[in-house]
C-alpha cells in the first residue's frame, strides 16, 4: 500500500562541488516532474531501469545535458516511481532544477524521507530503518544549529520580526472574535488591510533576499579574526597556495574584507579575511571593525588567530565577541616557529613552514561541517525549505488580503491566517494559540 500522495525531491549526493550531482525524485508525479525540466525526454514511454541522456531546461534556457534513470514503482528504492538525474556538479544547475520541479508540484523531501517511504512501502526492514532514524535525529540537530547560526544574522531577526507581526495581526482578528464583549477598540478593515499589506511587503523582501543571496551563493562562511598582525592574511594565502587550482578572488566592497572560495574535501568554503579587531579612535579603521563584526554575525565558523606578540587583551575581547554569538571556533597560535614552549591544548600553525596546515584543513572540515553537510539533504536545502515556506506564507497572506477586501467575517479570515502561521511556523518553530493569546492579553485590557 502506498501511504503517500505527494512527490518529493532532494539532492542525493553531498552538497558541494563534485563532478556530478544526483537529484532524486520519488512519488506518483515523479515522471511528470522530470518532464517539466526535460519536456522532450519521452520518459513515460521509456523502459524502467535504463539510463538515458536528456537535455535539461528551465523554460527555454538549457541548463545541462544529464544522464537520467527511470525506475517504475514498486521496483525502486522507495517503492514509488523514481527518477534519478545525474547533473554536472554545479550548485546553480542543481538549484534551478529543484526550483522548476517544485513549481511543477514536487515538495522538498524531509530529512530521511526517501528511506521512510522505503520502509513504509516495505522495501526495507526495521533494522535498516533504524539506521535512518539515527540519521534523522542527527540531522535535525544540525538543522537546529544551522537555524541558530542564521538567527545571529540580520535575516533571522527579520524572520523573527515577521513572526511577531503575524502573531500580532492574528491577535487583532481573534480579539474581535473571542473578546467581542470587551471594552477594547477593534481594528477596522482599513487598518487590517494596511497591516497585512505591510507584512506582505516585508515577506516579499525576505523572499527576494533568500533567492538571490543564500540560496545561490553557497559555501560555508568561515571568518578569520585576530588582532592586527596575527597572521590572518598569511594564513589565507597559505591555504590558497595549497589549493592553487581552484581560487576565485573576490574583493570586498572595501579593502577591509576579502573573501576567497576554497574547496576542501569537495565542499566549498567561503573564507573571509577581516580587519584586525582592536579598540581604536581611527575612523577608517573603525569602519573596518564594524565590518568585521558583521562578518562574525554571518559566519558559520571562526578561526581566531593569536601570534606570540599579539596583545592578550585584544585576543580576549575578540574571543568574547565570538562567544557572544555562540559561534563555533578554533583558536590558532600562529607563527609557531617563534614559540618555544607549547601548551598541547592549543592548535599551532606556522604558515611559513607549512607546519600544521594539513591538520588545520582537516580540522576545519571536521569542526565546521561535520553533520551539517555529511548527508546531502541538509545545508543546501535548508535555505530552499525556508524559501518554500516563505512563499507558502505569502500565498496564504495574499488570500487573507483578498478576503479582508471582500468583507469576509473574522472567523473565516482566521482560517486563512492559520495557514500562514503554519507555514511560517515551519521556519520559526510552531506558532501556537498561546502566542496569539499572549499578544492579546499583553496589549488589551481583557476581562470583566
Amino acid at each position, binding site marked *: 500500500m502506498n501511504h503517500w500522495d505527494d512527490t518529493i525531491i532532494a539532492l542525493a549526493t553531498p552538497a558541494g562541488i563534485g563532478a556530478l550531482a544526483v537529484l532524486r525524485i520519488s512519488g506518483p508525479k515523479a515522471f511528470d516532474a522530470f518532464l517539466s525540466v526535460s519536456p522532450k525526454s519521452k520518459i513515460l514511454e521509456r523502459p524502467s531501469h535504463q539510463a538515458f541522456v536528456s537535455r535539461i531546461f528551465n523554460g527555454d534556457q538549457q541548463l545541462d545535458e544529464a544522464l537520467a534513470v527511470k525506475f517504475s514503482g514498486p521496483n525502486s528504492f522507495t517503492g514509488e516511481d523514481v527518477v534519478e538525474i545525474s547533473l554536472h556538479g554545479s550548485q546553480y544547475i542543481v538549484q534551478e532544477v529543484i526550483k522548476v520541479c517544485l513549481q511543477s508540484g514536487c515538495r522538498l523531501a524531509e530529512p530521511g524521507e526517501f528511506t521512510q517511504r522505503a520502509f513504509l512501502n516495505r522495501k526495507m526492514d526495521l533494522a535498516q530503518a533504524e539506521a535512518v*532514524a539515527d540519521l534523522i535525529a542527527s540531522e535535525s540537530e544540525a538543522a537546529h544549529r544551522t537555524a541558530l547560526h542564521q538567527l545571529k544574522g540580520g535575516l533571522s531577526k527579520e524572520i523573527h520580526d515577521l513572526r511577531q507581526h503575524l502573531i500580532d495581526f492574528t491577535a487583532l482578528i481573534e480579539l474581535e472574535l473571542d473578546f467581542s464583549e470587551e471594552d477594547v477598540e477593534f481594528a477596522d478593515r482599513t487598518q487590517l488591510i494596511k497591516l497585512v499589506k505591510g507584512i506582505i511587503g516585508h515577506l516579499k523582501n525576505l523572499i527576494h533576499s533568500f533567492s538571490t543571496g543564500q540560496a545561490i551563493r553557497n559555501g560555508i562562511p568561515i571568518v578569520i579574526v585576530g588582532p592586527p598582525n596575527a597572521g590572518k592574511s598569511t594564513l589565507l594565502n597559505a591555504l590558497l597556495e595549497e589549493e592553487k587550482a581552484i581560487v576565485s578572488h573576490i574583493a570586498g566592497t572595501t579593502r577591509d574584507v576579502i573573501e576567497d572560495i576554497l574547496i576542501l574535501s569537495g565542499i566549498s568554503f567561503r573564507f573571509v579575511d577581516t580587519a584586525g579587531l582592536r579598540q581604536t579612535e581611527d575612523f577608517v579603521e573603525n569602519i573596518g571593525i564594524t565590518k568585521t563584526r558583521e562578518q562574525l554575525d554571518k559566519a558559520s565558523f571562526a578561526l581566531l588567530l593569536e601570534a606570540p606578540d599579539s596583545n592578550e587583551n585584544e585576543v580576549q575581547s575578540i574571543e568574547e565577541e565570538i562567544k557572544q554569538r555562540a559561534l563555533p571556533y578554533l583558536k590558532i597560535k600562529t607563527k609557531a616557529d617563534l614559540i618555544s614552549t607549547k601548551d598541547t591544548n592549543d592548535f599551532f600553525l606556522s604558515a611559513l613552514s607549512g607546519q600544521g596546515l594539513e591538520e588545520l584543513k582537516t580540522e576545519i572540515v571536521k569542526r565546521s561541517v561535520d553533520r551539517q553537510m555529511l548527508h546531502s539533504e541538509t545545508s543546501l536545502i535548508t535555505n530552499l525549505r525556508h524559501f518554500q515556506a516563505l512563499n507558502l506564507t505569502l500565498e496564504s497572506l495574499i488570500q487573507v488580503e483578498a478576503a479582508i477586501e471582500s468583507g469576509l467575517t473574522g472567523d473565516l479570515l482566521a482560517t486563512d491566517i492559520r495557514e500562514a502561521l503554519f507555514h511560517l511556523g515551519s521556519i520559526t518553530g510552531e506558532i501556537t494559540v498561546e502566542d496569539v493569546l499572549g499578544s492579546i492579553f499583553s496589549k488589551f*485590557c481583557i476581562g470583566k
Partner: protein
Amino acid sequence: MFSKYDIIVAGAGHAGCEAAAAAANMGSKVLLVTMNMTTIGQMSCNPAMGGVAKGQIVREIDALGGLSGIITDKTTIQFRMLNRSKGPAMWSPRAQNDRWRFAEEWRLALERIPNVDFLQDTVTELIVKDDRVTGVKTQLGYELSANAVVLTNGTFLNGLIHIGEKQLTGGRISESSATGITGQLVELGFETGRMKTGTPPRIDGRSMDYSKMEEQAGDENPSKFSFSKETSAIQNQRSCWITYTNDKVHTILEKGFSQSPMYTGRIQGLGPRYCPSIEDKITRFADKDRHQIFIEPEGWNTVEIYVNGFSTSLPYEVQTEALRHIPGLENAKIFRPGYAIEYDYFPPTQLKPTLETYLVENLYFAGQINGTTGYEEAACQGLMAGMNAHLKVKEENPFVLSRSEAYIGVLIDDLITKGTEEPYRMFTSRAEFRTLLRQNNADFRLTEKGNKVGLASQERLDVLRGKEQKIAETLELWKTLKLPLEELNPLLETKGTPLLTEKMSIENLLKRPQLAVTDFAPFFDKVNPHGADSEELEEAEVLIKYKPYIEKENQIAIKITDSESKELRRNIDFKAIKTLSNEAREKLTKLKPKTLGEAKKISGISQSDLSILLLYAVNSDEN
C-alpha cells in the same frame, strides 16, 4: 449502614452535579457528597452561563444529555446571542441567570434521579488499595465504599480567602475549606500547585441610580440552550446596566495597594490574565482612563446586584469608597465584599483522556481541581468524568471526544497534553475546527454519541432525527426552488444585491452575502412549506453559505482522524527505540498506547516522538 456505591462524587458544584447526574442516568448507583446541601449547584461568581466559546460548551453538554443547558434555560432572566454579526462559528449564546433558582433547579433535578443519593459531609481522605480507589473517608468518620470516585473540589482544597490584609480559610466566603486530600494525593505521588481567582462585590440594588447608566437589554427574539423540548425561550427579560470607572476611582484603589494581598506578596497563586482584578487592570493598563463595569441582577426578585468587572481583594473600606465614585453607584451599599481566593489544583497532565488519573485507578478529577476556570468548563469535565467513571465500572469502552468533534474534546486534550499555568478558560481560538464546532450543530455532532453510550435519551435522538429530516428536505427544495422574478427582484433591490434577469434557485441566492433566509419570510409558504423552525432554517442556511469552509475543515479533520487511528504494533519495545526522548520512552513503555492517537494524548510526547513512532511502530500490516 451505607450501601456500596458504584460511584462517589465529592463536591456538588457544576462539575459534581453533572458527574453525578450523568453516571446515575446511565445506570450507576451514585452518592453525591457535599459539605452543604443548600449550596448544590451554586454559582460562585457571576450569575451567568455561556458566552463566547462557553456557550458552545453548554450546548454540547446538552446535546450529550447533560443538564446544564436545561437548568440554564429554566432560570434565565436575560438571553443574548453574542457575535451575531460574525460568522456562524462565532455565534455564542449567553444567559443571565437567577442565582438562587439555578441552584434550586439543580437540586431538584438531582432529586428526581432515583439513582442519586445525597450525603452532607466532607470527604477528607480517599481509600486506596493497590493503586486503586475503593472509597472515601469523611469528616464525620464514615468509610464509604465505591468502585470509582470523582473529585470535584472546586476552590475548596486548602482554600484561602483574602480581603485586604485579612485572610480566612474557606472554599467560598463564609464556607469552610477542605483539607487533607491534597496531602494524601501528594503522598500518592501527585504533583500539586496553587491557583488564584477572585470575585467582585455584591451590592444593594436599592442604593443604585440606573439613570446614570446605559441599559443593556436582552435579545428581541431570545433563543435558548437546550435542544430538548423540555424548555422554552423566555418571554420577559431583565436588563443589565453598563457604567464606567474613572480617574478618581483608580486613585482611590491605588491608595489601597499597600494593603492589597496581590501587591504585598501574600498571594502566591497565579490568576487568569483574561479575568484580572480591577487593581490588575489599572496597573497593567495604566493609560486606560476608564474600565467598563456591568451591573448584573442576581435574580428575578432579589435586589442583590453583581458588579461584573470589579473583581478585587482590596480592603472593604477601599472597595466601598471606590465604588461610590462610579456613576450610578454614589450611594452603593455593599452586601458582600469582593475577595480573592487561592486553592490547590493538580496539573491535569496527570490525567488520561477519560479524566481518570494515571496514578490511582478509578479516581477521576473534574473542574477547578484540574486548573480550569468557569462553570461551563467545569460542568463539561464533570459530565465526561461521570460518564467515563460509569463506563469503567461497567467495563465498557471509554468515551472520548476529539478536537474536531467538540470544544469539550479541545478542552480535555489541551489539559491532559499541555497542562496549564493559569486558570484555563475556553476560547474559540483554541479550536482548530472552529467552523465545525458551531453552537447550532452541537446536537448533530454529539446527540447520537451520547445516546449510544446510554446518556442522551431516545426522545432527544427523535428530536434530532426530526430536525435532520427537516433540514434535508429544506436543502433539497432550495436546490431547485425558484421564485418568480417579479416577486423576488423588489426584495433583491432593497437588499442591495444585483437583480435577476433569469430565475435562480434559493440555494444560489443564499450564497450571496447580502441575503439571509429570514429575508425570504414573505415567501415562506413556498420557501418553507415543511414548517422548519428558525433553528432548522438557520442551520440549512449555514450549510449553504459556509459550505467551502466547512468542507475544508472536514477534510483536514478526516485526515487527522485517519493518522490517529493508525495502530501501533503490539508488543513493541519502546525502550529499544533510541531516538525517542527519554520521557517518551518511559511513558510509552508504561502506558502502552494502542494507536498513534493514544500516544499523541500523552503529555510529554513531542511531534518528533510521534514522527519516530510513525516510522518505527506503526503497524504496516494494515493493508
